[in-house]
Every structure is written in C-alpha cells, then in structure tokens.
C-alpha cells in the first residue's frame, strides 16, 4: 500500500543486487539509522538506554553472529555464551595489558580471539552434523566457562573472580567504565552493530553467503558443486564467533561494567539462540527483531503484575514469568515457526502487493 515500485526499473546489476533494492526500504532504513544515532541519546532516559537499548544492541550483534552460523550456514551451536566469554575476557586482558590500545581495536581483537577459538571448536562440524554438533558445541560452552573460572590469570588474579571495564575514550569521549555516560555507551554499541550488520548483509548476499546456504540446504549437492565443506563451515564458525566475541566484550564494557563467568553461562547461549529462532533463521533483520523481543519480554513480564495492581511474592512472580516466557516461546513457534522476520516479510509483501493478496 505504501510501496510505489512502478517505474523503478533496474539498469545495472549493482542496483539489482543492492541490499535494499526497493527505494522506500532504502530511504526508511537510512532514516532509521540516522534517527537511531540522534534521537535516543537526546531523548531517552538513562533507564531506557541502560536497561533496554544497550543490551538490545549488544544482543542483536550476538544474534547476528549466531544467525550467520545457524541460520545461514545451518550449523546449530549452543556455545554462544562461551564464545562471548572469550571476547569479554580477551578485552579485559587486552585493556589491562595494553592500556593505550584504542578500545575499538580492543573490541576487534577480542572478536578475533573469539574467532580463533570458534574455529577450533568448529572442527568437529566436519564429521558430525545437526544435534550431534549442537551437543558438541556445548563442550565449548562448558569448557571455556570452566577455564575462565579456574585460571586466575584471566581475571588478573582478582580475588573476586570478576573482570571490570576500565575507563576508555574514543575521540575524547569516555565510552567504557564507570564514568561513561549511558548515551556514549549506547552510541558505541550502535556504531558497532550498524557496521557489523552491514558486513553481515554483504557477506550473506555474496560468494560466502551462497556457499553457506548451499551447505545448509543440500550439503552433498554443495560439495559436488565445489563447495569445500570444512573450509566453509569453519569460516562460518570463525565469523560467527567473531561477532559473539565482540558482543561479549561489549556486554562487559558497555553494559554490565563488571562480570563473572556466570554472565556467560549456558542460559546465555539459549537466550541468543531464542533471539535467532524467534527473530527468524537466516535473516539479519530477524536478529534485531528477536533481540528486541527477548529483551523486552522479561521487562514487560516483570512490570505486568505491578501495572495490573497484583502483589505477589518475588519467587512466585519469577515462576510465573518463567511459565509465561516458556509459553510465549511455544506460542510463537507454533504461530510462526519462521520467526518475526517472516511475519515482517509477509507484511511487507502484503503492502507491496496490496490490494492483491499475493
């Protein structure tokens, strides 16, 4: 209904292969990105930035990472929390060992560290598939968490076993540590997720994305076409872990401020996986939608009884939250197993074809 596509013909492959080939989409996305950089820092309160927007952006990044691996390359992973931990601990070690290193470089290097570990744990994917692989990635999850817990070197021998984000600046603005404003951390997180969402889009629409999807859809046919499975899967593991690593570093440096290994336990892996599934497998947009859903749902559930005027014990509320959370997940899977991105897609198609149904 809103879309007006008649007369917008493509005269080059470049415009036909653009990320957003439809003008309205392009305009909307650009405006949305600009608005995201400008509006919330000016308008949103600290609670919104700190409790909702910053974690949303960080988890969106992690979800994109997992989506590349699971949604595009078809390799189910439950080790996300572990890879995020690698990023977080690498960032901590790097900032303390090289205090003058730019925080941006620290994040990127942490991502690389996570990528290296991801590659290592991706090796079994050559031999095993599906749930066997998923279970194998749990090994990464448990082993890595155990490692960071046990080896005091990772926490610089802190007696509390926690890692803490020091103050670091970008262009003279403090973006991490206790003195950074929520707005600065928000912009930092947004900048990262914007760039890496774009990178993800670029990867999946090109050579690499196609080889991932080929492996996902028909691994044998892909091999016979010339896709080398190990190389392709490992690349997916590496890139995915890079994203998760950066997200892990951000989680500590931009959101929590300090953390123990508990912040990266198996539940974290499930949380990100939920985001990917609820958002939509094989969709970058879906990663954002899924992250928003999973971040907002508990907040909503926590506030619901209060706003309804119900008073209940903390334990009871927690239990009810769990039930509703689980129930809603089931509900969503049943209503739209392909996730929010598919709903979005269907809605968009409807608008494009309106008044025709298809």
């Amino acid at each position, binding site marked *: 209904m809103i879309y007006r596509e008649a007369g917008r013909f493509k005269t*080059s*492959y*470049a415009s*036909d*292969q653009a990320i957003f080939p439809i003008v309205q989409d392009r305009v909307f996305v650009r405006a949305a990105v600009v608005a995201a950089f400008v509006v919330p820092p000016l308008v949103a309160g600290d609670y919104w930035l700190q409790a909702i927007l910053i974690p949303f952006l960080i988890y969106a990044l992690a979800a994109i990472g997992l989506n590349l691996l699971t949604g595009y390359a078809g390799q189910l992973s439950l080790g996300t929390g572990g890879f995020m931990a690698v990023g977080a601990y690498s960032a901590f070690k790097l900032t303390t060992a090289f205090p003058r290193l730019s925080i941006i470089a620290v994040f990127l290097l942490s991502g690389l560290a996570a990528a290296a570990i991801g590659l290592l744990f991706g090796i079994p994917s050559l031999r095993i598939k599906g749930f066997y692989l998923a279970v194998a990635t749990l090994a990464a999850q448990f082993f890595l968490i155990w490692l960071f817990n046990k080896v005091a070197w990772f926490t610089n021998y802190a007696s509390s076993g926690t890692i803490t984000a020091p103050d670091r600046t970008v262009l003279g603005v403090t973006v991490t540590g206790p003195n950074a404003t929520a707005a600065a951390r928000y912009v930092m997180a947004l900048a990262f997720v914007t760039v890496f969402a774009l*990178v993800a889009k*670029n*990867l999946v*629409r*090109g*050579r*690499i994305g*196609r*080889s991932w*999807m*080929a492996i*996902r*859809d*028909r691994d*044998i*046919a*892909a*091999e*016979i*076409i*010339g*896709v*080398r499975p190990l190389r392709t899967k490992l*690349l997916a593991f590496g890139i995915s872990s890079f994203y998760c690593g950066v997200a892990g570093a951000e989680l500590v440096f931009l959101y929590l401020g300090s953390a123990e290994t508990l912040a990266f336990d198996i539940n974290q892996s499930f949380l990100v996986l939920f985001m990917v599934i609820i958002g939509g497998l*094989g969709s970058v947009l879906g990663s954002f939608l899924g992250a928003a859903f999973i971040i907002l749902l508990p907040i909503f559930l926590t506030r619901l009884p209060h706003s309804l005027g119900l008073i209940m014990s903390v334990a009871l509320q927690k239990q009810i939250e769990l039930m509703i959370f689980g129930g809603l997940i089931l509900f969503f899977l049943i209503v739209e197993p392909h996730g929010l991105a598919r709903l979005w897609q269907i809605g968009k198609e409807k608008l494009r074809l309106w008044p025709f149904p298809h």
Partner: protein
Amino acid sequence: MSHPAPAGPVLEVDGVSVRFGALIAVNQVSLSVGRGQIVAIIGPNGAGKTTLLNAVSGFYHPYEGRIAFEGKDRTRLQPPDVAALGIARTFQNVALFKGMSVLDNIMTGRLLKMRGSFLLEALYWGPAKRQELEHRAFVERIIDFLEIQAIRKTPAGRLPYGLQKRVELARALAAEPKLLLLDEPMAGMNVEEKEDMCRFILDVNHEFGTTIALIEHDMGVVMDICDRVVVLDYGRKIADGPPAEVRKDQAVLDAYLGVAHE
C-alpha cells in the same frame, strides 16, 4: 569458452567396481567418453547407473579400478576437487538449494570461478563487488540460454518440478563444465518439457562443445540425441555402441524385457 584440450577421451572409466558392504553396485565397468560426445548410460532400475555417476563425481570411491579425466587419474579425488577439474552434474532427485532464489542457486555454480578476498567481500567493495557483478552477468546469459527469465527471483523450492530440473541444469552449466553428468534429466517431465530439455542438451553440446554423459530411461530421447549408448545391468556393462546397434543387441533386449514384465 574452453581452451584447446589434449586429444583422447575426456573421461575414462577403467574396470571400476563400487561396493557397499557385500553389495557390488558397480562391477568392473569400463567405458570412455570422447570429447564433445553425448553418451547415454541406460539400464534397468538398480543397474548401478547413478552409483557409477557418483563414483565419477568423487562421491563414492571405487574399491578397484581407475577413473581418469582428460588423461589424468582422479580416482581418489574428493567431490569439490572433481568439480574443480570441470565436471558438473545434476541429480536424479533434484538437489536444488530450496531456501535460495533461482538466481542464487545458479550463482552457486560459479563459486569455483570466484576468488575469495574476505575483507573486500565484507565491505562489498572494489574487486569483490566487481566479481559479483561479472558473475551475475555470466549467470544471466545462462538464464537467457535456458529461458528461465521469468523465475529468476523465485525461491527454488516453490518451482514446479520441470522447472527445477531446468534450474539445476543451469546451475551445472554455470560452472562451465568440460564434462556434464546428467542423472535422468527428463524424469517426471511431460512431452513438451522433455522436448525443451532435449533441445537444451543439444544446444549446450553444440554451443559450448560440452561433453555430456547422461542417464535416461526414455529410449526415444536416447536414440534421438546420443552419440553412444552404454548399457548396464546388475552393475555390469552389457553393451556399448551407437544407439542403432545397441537397440538390436540381444543382451540389451533380454535385460529390458526382463524388467518390462516385472
């Protein structure tokens, strides 16, 4: 499209046997496919035709015998290496990537021709972008060739069967193969679709000089378009020659009559 290549057969299969446990699916089969030929492999169900193709693709490895491509032994190569030599194929039960569009499916056929530069690809910039667009242009020529313009953006999984087969052929052609293996390219098609497919196969052979080995049940098609016919039965080769001769061969008649009354 192809460089001047050495003389002699493109593909030589020499005494190849493939077995699964106790079952010998292909039993000491030898055959050779000459450059530019269209060779049909026929035989009753379970004769080992697909298995033989799989062995050529590198998907199964023979436990005895030798497979040579353009004179070089390649018996033990893995499928991606076989593909890199210039052998492409289609599958008996269409093996398209269902989650991808027709265009992307065919683009996967170009993967071997594309060079990786990860960082540039991440930025979709410079040579990486150029490479994408160049290969798109090439793929569009194949889309044009196979007359599938109207469906290029359709998800492959949503296409009717006949078109899926055509897209699969397009994907194989995108690799610019020297040898094209077609596993029942016309199975399940109606007469019109079959005629189209025959025309495409002949055109590929004529236009690009591609050597083609195909498995086909429709004897009319085989007689029409093939230079040579190889007949398998119970994993063994029972005949090999021009279609007109093979047609009269007693062993072939027996094998076919045997199954005709099943």
